[in-house]
């Protein structure tokens, strides 16, 4: 029997079972009920390669403050069965005070858990569910979790009633009875794990995934056309856009492949509509040629890459940061473009909106490097600010007496773009080197001029302070990009509690590289810990290629599939402090 731990600031729990057992649904119900109860939280899924019938785990972290990553240890594990669970065991190390509930007939307890010294309790989940007409064991699991962490059945039933509304009142009643049966198993365990109450119940909060947030941010930024080719883990961006765009008079087309989807986006943008497509690494590889076309022809588009483990097909359901190189360097020739990386699920909204703004303002392609850990995480967040960017695409209005030059050389490198239908603005957009008019040219001066134009418009743009989140003070700095900002922030918070001050520089704008702002942010740092989730250290090499890094550098990196957690970041800093 575990000892009481007192109220916790954050609880991490996992619900596991065979695919189809409903573990993911159970986790989603817990997360939503917690949201209604005023807590914050995050849920990720861990699923096997099978589409149906493999193993599945819902990993949920609930907290009384906003959280941006999972924790490395679980306080509670509920196993509907143990089929294939050993494949998950390494991803779900239990805390010392951890509690495990499993079905009495759910198979052998994996060695890693049986020998870990945590409390294991057996509950006849399947039998209990069988006794209730229409009962399901995952709802028994929901009851167990609710009882342990102190979620009220009323909050949960609100969610269950909504989720099961299509299945009718009998299904809802069966759900209620199962949840009550689950709670009833726990009288002796109540108060093992209690979450500190949150004071946030009345504040506006959202429940959203990173993929939804990217889609919504893009629409807020003005996107009205999307081209889609499904790929894990980016498909949900496109699925959200399909309905989101339909509600604002936009359109989504399903393409036959990624070669098509990116070119569709270019065509729609050429027609005057801000356009987007979303993919993952394999799809980005196919889109690269067209990204060069968008750079040369100066057609704004946004391509979202929700990164997964690579190379090749890699690990489609797991996160990695290893598409940085292709995003920055993938295009042949010199093809200046933008690479933007959201720093959290909430920031997916801002970053996507900003990416659309930048692409439109500079008439250039922008790549958003999200990743699976952001895209497929469902998170309870404070309502994000509704940011407004006023500048739009610079448009040729027509009625000029002088002949129109689409690629005229201007002070800021951005030239007015004629939208088809505008009299007098006819031009041919081209991937061939062209003159100011757009006519194909192999002249040295045209090549040089257009290179300078495309480079300068991006190099000289005013990006404000959005290029990075720079937080805190201290002679030690953690330098990260993209989703690693989440565990880095958590680590810095923990270290602050130990009296160790650490500064964070989390880069949102990867390309162009703003050297002066970057070096200024690192001013005063004597030790810099660079963290990234790649095998080869792409980010570190990228930074080294851009400037001489100041101070002492440590580099912590490894590939997926296991996410980099706050505790191991803390260990890196603690270890460095000792030396």
């Amino acid at each position: 029997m575990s000892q009481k731990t007192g109220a916790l600031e954050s609880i991490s729990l996992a619900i596991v079972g065979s695919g189809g057992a409903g573990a993911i649904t159970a986790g989603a119900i817990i997360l939503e009920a917690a949201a209604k109860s005023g807590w914050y939280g995050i849920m990720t899924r861990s699923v096997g390669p099978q589409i149906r019938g493999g193993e599945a785990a819902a990993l949920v972290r609930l907290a009384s403050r906003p959280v941006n990553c999972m924790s490395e240890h679980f306080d509670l594990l509920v196993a509907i069965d143990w089929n294939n669970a050993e494949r998950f065991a390494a991803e779900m190390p239990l805390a010392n005070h951890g509690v495990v509930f499993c079905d009495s007939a759910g198979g052998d307890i994996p060695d890693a858990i049986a020998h870990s010294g945590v409390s294991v309790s057996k509950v006849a989940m399947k039998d209990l569910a069988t006794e209730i007409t229409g009962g399901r064991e995952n709802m028994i699991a929901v009851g167990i979790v609710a009882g342990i962490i102190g979620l009220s059945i009323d909050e949960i039933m609100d969610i269950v009633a909504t989720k099961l509304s299509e299945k009718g009142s009998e299904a809802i009643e069966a759900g209620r009875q199962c949840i009550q049966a689950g709670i009833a198993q726990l009288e002796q365990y109540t108060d093992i794990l209690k979450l500190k109450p949150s004071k946030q119940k009345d504040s506006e909060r959202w429940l959203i995934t990173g993929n939804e947030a990217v889609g919504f941010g893009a629409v807020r930024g003005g996107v009205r056309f999307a081209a889609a080719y499904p790929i894990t883990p980016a498909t949900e961006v496109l699925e959200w856009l399909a309905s989101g765009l339909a509600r604002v008079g936009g359109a989504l087309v399903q393409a036959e492949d990624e070669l098509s989807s990116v070119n569709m986006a270019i065509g729609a943008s050429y027609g005057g509509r801000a356009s987007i497509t979303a993919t993952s690494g394999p799809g980005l590889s196919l889109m690269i040629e067209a990204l060069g076309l968008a750079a040369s022809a100066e057609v704004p588009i946004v391509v979202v890459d929700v990164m997964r483990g690579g190379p090749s097909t890699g690990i489609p359901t797991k996160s990695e940061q290893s598409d940085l190189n292709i995003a920055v360097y993938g295009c042949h020739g010199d093809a200046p473009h933008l690479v933007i990386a959201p720093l959290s699920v909430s920031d997916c909204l801002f970053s996507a909106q900003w990416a659309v703004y930048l692409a439109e303002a500079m008439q250039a392609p922008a790549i958003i490097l999200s990743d699976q850990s952001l895209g497929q995480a469902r998170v309870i967040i404070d309502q994000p600010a509704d940011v407004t960017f006023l500048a739009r695409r610079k448009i040729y209005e027509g009625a000029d007496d002088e002949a129109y030059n689409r690629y005229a050389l201007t002070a800021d490198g951005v030239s007015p773009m004629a939208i088809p239908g505008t009299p007098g603005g006819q031009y041919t957009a081209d991937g061939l080197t062209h003159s100011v008019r757009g006519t194909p040219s192999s002249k040295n001066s045209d090549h040089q001029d257009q290179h300078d134009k495309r480079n300068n418009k991006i190099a000289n743009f005013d990006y404000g302070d959005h290029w990075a989140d720079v937080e805190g003070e201290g002679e030690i700095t953690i330098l990260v990009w993209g989703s690693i900002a989440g565990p880095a922030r958590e680590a810095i918070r923990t270290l602050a509690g130990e009296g160790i001050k650490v500064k964070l520089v989390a880069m949102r704008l990867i390309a162009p590289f703003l050297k002066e702002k970057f070096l200024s942010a690192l001013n005063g740092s004597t030790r810099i810990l660079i963290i990234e989730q790649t095998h080869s250290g792409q980010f570190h090499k990228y930074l080294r290629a851009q400037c001489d890094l100041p101070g002492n550098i440590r580099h912590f990196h490894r590939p997926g599939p296991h996410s980099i957690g706050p505790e191991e970041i803390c260990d890196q800093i603690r270890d460095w402090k000792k030396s």
Partner: protein
Amino acid sequence: MNAPQPSPFKSSSYKSDIKPVWCPGCGDFHVLMSVTKALAELGRAPEDVAVISGIGCSSRIPAYTNCYGFHGVHGRSLALAAGLKVARPDLNVMVMSGDGDGFSIGGNHFLHACRRNIDMTYIVMDNRVYGMTKGQPSPTTEPDWDSALSPGGTGLSPFHPLVIALASGANFVARTFSGSIKESTNVIVEAVRHPGFSFVEILSPCVTFRPDEREWKNTVHTAAVETTSDPARAARRIMTDDGFNTGILYRGDRKPYDTHVSDTPGDVSILDQEFKIG
């Protein structure tokens, strides 16, 4: 009902002042002439027409028109045009390609463009050779045509674009010869007017790398049959003809792709409702 207004435009209204890169005698000059004549007859203002292409000799055509144009990457013209037409259903979108661009590197897009049936016109200038790279066999090249890249010929069956278009769902299928400017003009006018995806193969000789194709002017003949709306009958005819039958060979009545887009600004502010914890 009012009588149709005469077009305010001449074919010269659709021509630019840029000199084509094509070799003297290239069939594509005639195609450019037929396209501009057809546009004049259709009467859409040059700024309301978009000519989209990929890479190759024939794909140079957009800049030689006075329309909006896009000379994109190799093989993807249909995809780019699909995005444009869905975003801008008000435009007249014409896609111009060649046999290498359209049937080899762009083959998959051809199938799905036919299937998707977006209201646009696809003109492929077929000369059965890669001309810009100086003479390699394309998907429509005869199996015994000798070249440096395929000594003795490819030995491969030529691709049959019209049958494939029909099987994939194109709504209008026609073949013409570049030198028959009047017939080509009429066919293009009909292709643009027909709703949905219209496919026109124009046999357009490459006099430089396929001098034998100069003979085409004596080989082509107008199809001696009426246009059909029965795809099975059209397919049988096309499968069994000699490849030089010209005219409108099929007119279907499939409903064109519905683009859904609206110019009415939607209310973006309501979209956050689904995320709010209520």
